[in-house]
């Protein structure tokens, strides 16, 4: 918690466009170390985009992102990412263990094989998510909740300082949801920073100590008690900023930014 150390995430005047339509517009955000941040907002508010922009997977049109004070992608080694469950082909021939081992790939380096230490560490991570008995199952044969646990075990295996999670609570059963919440809080208590995309307002208040209210713009960011107010939520969920979206799009079209792959 040294004041000299840079914050894990610093987002400055960030504008991100998808097919020449802005999804995030002029977002400023600074997250301090050891925060458990919930990113909430209506559908299409740019929640996942914010995460992807921080990960450097989407190039900003304007502004920048610093991760641990570093604009280049070098610091991304310290970041663990849990993508949305739908982003993956669940029929791919891998076992739960293989998936968790993927969390170690960033440490292993190119061309190298995973070591025995990596393997035993991966089993520990599976064990922590109560998934060790399923280690050799094909990943598609697991239930939705179990798949999510495997994803989180992989994130644990990354041993990151900052975690970015995209809807980890989507489509999981109550027990898994509880397990995930415990995991998040444990990680936070170890001094890690977490940013979690979440869409369930009723639980957001209990799960997170910070909230980022997002709807194209960052409506508010701060400690949960301060931000979780009727007024601010109204502004977040009360309709989209249609004019801003329209005009922003026109501006971008004139600029003709290099089109983003995918």
């Amino acid at each position, binding site marked *: 918690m040294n004041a000299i150390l840079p914050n894990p995430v610093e987002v400055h005047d960030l504008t991100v466009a998808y097919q020449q339509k802005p999804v995030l517009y002029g977002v400023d955000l600074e997250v301090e170390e050891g925060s458990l941040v919930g990113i909430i907002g209506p559908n299409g508010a740019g929640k996942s985009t914010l995460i*992807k922009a921080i*990960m*450097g*997977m989407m190039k900003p049109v304007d502004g920048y992102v610093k991760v641990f004070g570093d604009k280049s*992608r070098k610091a*991304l*080694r310290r*970041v663990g*990412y849990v*993508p949305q469950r739908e*982003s*993956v*082909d669940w029929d*791919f*021939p*891998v*076992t739960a263990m*293989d*998936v968790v*081992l*993927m969390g170690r*790939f*960033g440490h*292993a380096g*190119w*061309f190298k*094989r*995973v070591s025995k230490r990596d393997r035993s560490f991966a089993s520990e991570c599976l064990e922590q998510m109560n998934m060790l008995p399923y280690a050799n199952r*094909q990943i598609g044969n697991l239930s939705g909740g179990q798949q999510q646990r495997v994803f989180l075990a*992989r994130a644990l295996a*990354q041993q990151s300082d900052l975690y970015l999670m995209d809807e980890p609570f989507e489509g999981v059963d109550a027990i898994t949801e509880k397990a995930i919440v415990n995991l998040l809080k444990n990680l936070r208590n170890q001094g890690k920073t977490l940013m979690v995309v979440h869409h369930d307002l009723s639980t957001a208040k209990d799960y997170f100590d910070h909230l980022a209210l997002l709807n194209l713009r960052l409506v508010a960011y701060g400690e949960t008690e301060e931000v979780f107010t009727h007024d601010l939520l109204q502004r977040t969920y009360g309709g989209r900023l249609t004019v801003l979206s329209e005009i922003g799009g026109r501006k971008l079209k004139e600029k003709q930014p290099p*089109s983003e*792959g995918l």
Partner: protein
Amino acid sequence: MFLPIWKKLKYTLLILVLSREASVLKAAQISSTTEQDWVNQAIRFWTFTDSSIQIIAVGAILIGINCGLMGGYVVSRRLSMFGDTLSHAVLPGIAVGFMISQSKNEAALMLGATLSGFLGVSIIALLKRHTKMKEDSAMGLVLSGFYALGICLITYLQQSPNGGMSGLESYLFGSLVGLSTGDLLPLCICLSLIIVCFVLLNKELLLSGFDPSFARSVGLPVDILQYCIWLLLAFCIVSSLQVIGVVLVSALLIIPAATAGLLTYKMSRLLVYSGIIGAFSGIAGCFLSFMGERLPAGPVIVLCSTLLFLTVLFFSPTRGILPSWLRTRKRGQRIRCENTLKACYQVLEECSFSKQSFSQTSLARRRRKSAAETEREIEALIRQGYATRQESPTEQKSELPSETMVSLTPSGWEIATRMIRNHRLWELYLTKEASYAPDHVHDDAEKIEHIIGEKTVRQIERILDNPQRDPHGKLIPSQDDIDRGWLSPTLVVDK
């Protein structure tokens, strides 16, 4: 001689005719030594004495392995359609390569094929990015467009005066005849590239295939890896073309890998199996094509791999159709048997276990089945050693045929009692713990009794504190009763 046909027929038919002509040529080439019968031919093939046969066999195996290994990635990354498109898109390149070099120069043909393949792939990417076209229609368009162009060009070349250039059509359906030692070199290079790539980049390819966004997040250049795969794929296809042909090379990419996918769900094993299956199809198809002189190599090799696929689909021990059908049938038989035994118990119970045997008709009445059906069921029990049958020692005065009496053997008794115990315990459990109405529990218990297992039964017994009577007031046999092998009548009528 082609001109009248050209005017009358469409492309496809033309190709058929062309290949017929070609195979006559082929036959002429091989049959110089073939006045022998097929046994000698087979011996000649499998002893590999002929250097031409050696080359053919090695080539077919190499192609099988190459396509099998590449196929593992193509199929698991859902690029099957892509592989098909790429293989068709190379055809015009071959024709153009030939036009420019004016010979069957390997390097020129390969270069042309690769360039044309990449042109096709780029067109797909462009169409996808800049139009509303979906990927599958874009692939369909490129596939058929390039293929049609290729056929036209090749047909044109075929008729040109410079025409001793037969052999070009082997790029359509494949042929083993023209294979020379020089053709093996690209195949070897391709195989070593694939192996080096897969071994070194094993985990990178696995990760970028399974979860590209996560792969990007740990800093893997997913797109570059994707291009590597494409490049390898293009090389693999181009080097296999002469033997397999444009039309079917994608089948050899897909089928061995799909077969391996039925056998395992680990990527490394899938690749190994797929390679082996590919090699086997290669050599088997090569042999058959050699035996039946007029058979083009590509289709035969593909047929062999399809046959392997079907074999695995039907007979693979864990998930094969036949073994699982047999398992289901066996389970059905067991359940029928257990139901009969249960009915036997109930018949004995009706007379409070005062007798050790019962008549076949009383069982039929209990089961509400015809005498013939009951007869069959009893026979099934006797076959498995669960029951014995004897003619009743009759007072033979009556006109009626003598009654057949049945009694259970100890093992039959054990199963019967166990089923009754499972059934009644489950009924009691449902009424007491899951608050079912007593008249709703029977049907459920009918199914559960066969699958519940001893461990759960013990657990239920503990939960219910070793109960004596089921919800309908009937006795629940205990483990002791099963061990003792008989229920004493006094116990049953008790109360």
